[in-house]
């Protein structure tokens, strides 16, 4: 069975490493990260091929290499100047061509949305380009054996366990900001795994169909919304602070 997980790199300004060591780099989008974690968990017990597919810059390689150490079988990095600035339309154009090129894909996993763009549209557009079903609100992946993919979906208060035949696009509902640990031994062994890089030519795409040129939406303006509050420090003896807090609660 061949499974592809779509990975979006996002700017890491939230991991423990980023905060403690001031390291500026990329992290796996938290929604994709949870799906990845669930897939790697099952992979320990069941046999299937797991390919990581990522459209991003060459700077993502360190982040992607760790995924090989974590258990992903191979990584395909779609990297090209022409891919930059893509909206969901141009992104799915590139991703779908890559998936067709990979071929024989049974399931494609995506996180519900990226924590930066937050459109949540990519998995759906991908499914429609490939003409395959899309299964959303997946909260847990239960197994992936010969019978097919068994998963759990959460729809409001309804929990549904389903078996899904291939091919299909699977959308993971939740996210995690917890990083996974990789042992030094697996890091060493990851050298034998493949990290393949494809550009627009390999995908037989014209540059005008990718990136900004191939996008069908454009950002005209963007500004930061400040959510900061006064952060008044409540000082003094704990019992006095508690009394103050209770006063505020009473209103």
């Amino acid at each position, binding site marked *: 069975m061949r499974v592809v997980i779509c990975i979006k790199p996002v700017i890491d300004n*939230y991991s423990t490493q980023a905060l403690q060591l001031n390291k500026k780099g990329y992290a796996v989008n*938290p929604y994709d990260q949870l799906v990845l974690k669930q897939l790697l968990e099952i992979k320990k017990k069941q046999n299937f091929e797991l390919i990581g597919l990522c459209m991003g810059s060459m700077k993502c390689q360190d982040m992607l290499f760790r995924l090989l150490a974590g258990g992903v079988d191979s990584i395909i990095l779609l990297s090209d100047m022409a891919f930059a600035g893509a909206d*969901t*339309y141009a992104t*799915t154009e590139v991703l779908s061509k890559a998936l067709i090129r990979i071929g024989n894909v049974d399931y494609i996993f995506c996180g*519900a949305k990226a*924590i*930066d*763009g*937050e*459109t*949540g*549209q990519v998995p*759906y*557009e991908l499914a*429609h*380009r490939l003409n395959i*079903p899309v299964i*959303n609100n997946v909260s847990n992946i239960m197994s992936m054996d010969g019978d097919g993919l*068994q998963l759990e979906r959460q729809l*409001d*208060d*309804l*929990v*549904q*366990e*389903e*078996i*899904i*035949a*291939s091919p*299909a696009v699977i959308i993971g509902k*939740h*996210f*995690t*900001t917890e990083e996974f640990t990789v042992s030094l031994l697996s890091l060493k062994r990851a050298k034998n795994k493949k990290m393949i890089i494809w550009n627009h030519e390999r995908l037989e795409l014209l540059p005008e169909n990718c990136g900004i040129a191939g*996008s*069908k*939406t*454009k950002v*005209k*303006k*963007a*500004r*930061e*919304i400040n*959510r*900061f509050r*006064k*952060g008044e*420090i*409540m000082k003094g003896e*704990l*019992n006095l*602070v*508690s009394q103050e*807090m*209770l006063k*505020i*609660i009473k209103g």
Partner: protein
Amino acid sequence: MMDKVKICVICLDDRPWNLQMISKAISFGTNVTVSAILLRSDDKEHIDYHRYGVSEIHVVNISDSLEQFALTGIITNLNDLLKPDLYMFPASDQGRDFAAEAAVCLKCGLVADCIDINYENEFIFVRTTNSDSVLAEIVCCNGSSAMCTVKKNIFEILPQQIETDTARIHYSSCDNRNFLQGRQILRQYRNTDINEASLSEARIIFGIGRGCSDKIKIDKLRKLAGYIGAEIAGTRAVVDDGIINYDRQVGQSGVRIAPDIYIAFGISGAAQHVVGIDKTKTIIAVNRDKEAPIFRFADYAVIADCEEVIDSLINEVERGGI
């Protein structure tokens, strides 16, 4: 003065949502023609959207189950007929799916989760990104129509216009490829632990983070919550650890709350959580790490050990009542 503009609203099973989108479309002015495509799985509803200003309604009956790929057959024909400048979809799961299908089929741009739409020679869509910390204005280009999904309860429903019978209503059903094949539901059950309503109605909510997540602290917190009448919620991390149920998760992929008072215990303040508490009137953060990001998003900062604070609060309540 706006040129003649045609808007097509895709309506699903949520009537208020449908009316909100239609009202927004109508509000662009007299030069706008609004049509609607109503995809429905039952035929009980009396079609009255024309009373809200829709001039042409296409009612399509689809089967009750998986409705994917219902649109492709319809949308190409209707697009040729209506040639809308803008398609509006509800930003529900189903709406997103249909919008994606339309975008791919008609090769148009799609702006997701809009919280406002303006018009200045072109449609300008407003949405937030980066955990609601950035406000962006987006336009569509290089496509025959603009498309957007619209969030619920953003636009108001305008009152019905004077009764007109000038609406044209067309009925059809869809040749729906059945994607149920290959899907098998093993079992389903209702998660009765779920009670989201209590969070959305609570006046006071306590939030639990990793820093306050061991059993002793939580038991004390529940006791305090009982005294004060507070509901308990938490971050994604605490749900991951199995300490609270996911319906109590506040944040980007959970519930957004707007109580009067929110007290965060042991929460570091990641953007994914903060976006969920943003509409709270007063936020008090308790954390012994003075560098915790939550303090920038709180009205009051208590830099102390959570357990000590909870003990002290319990003490004060037991001593003097609240």
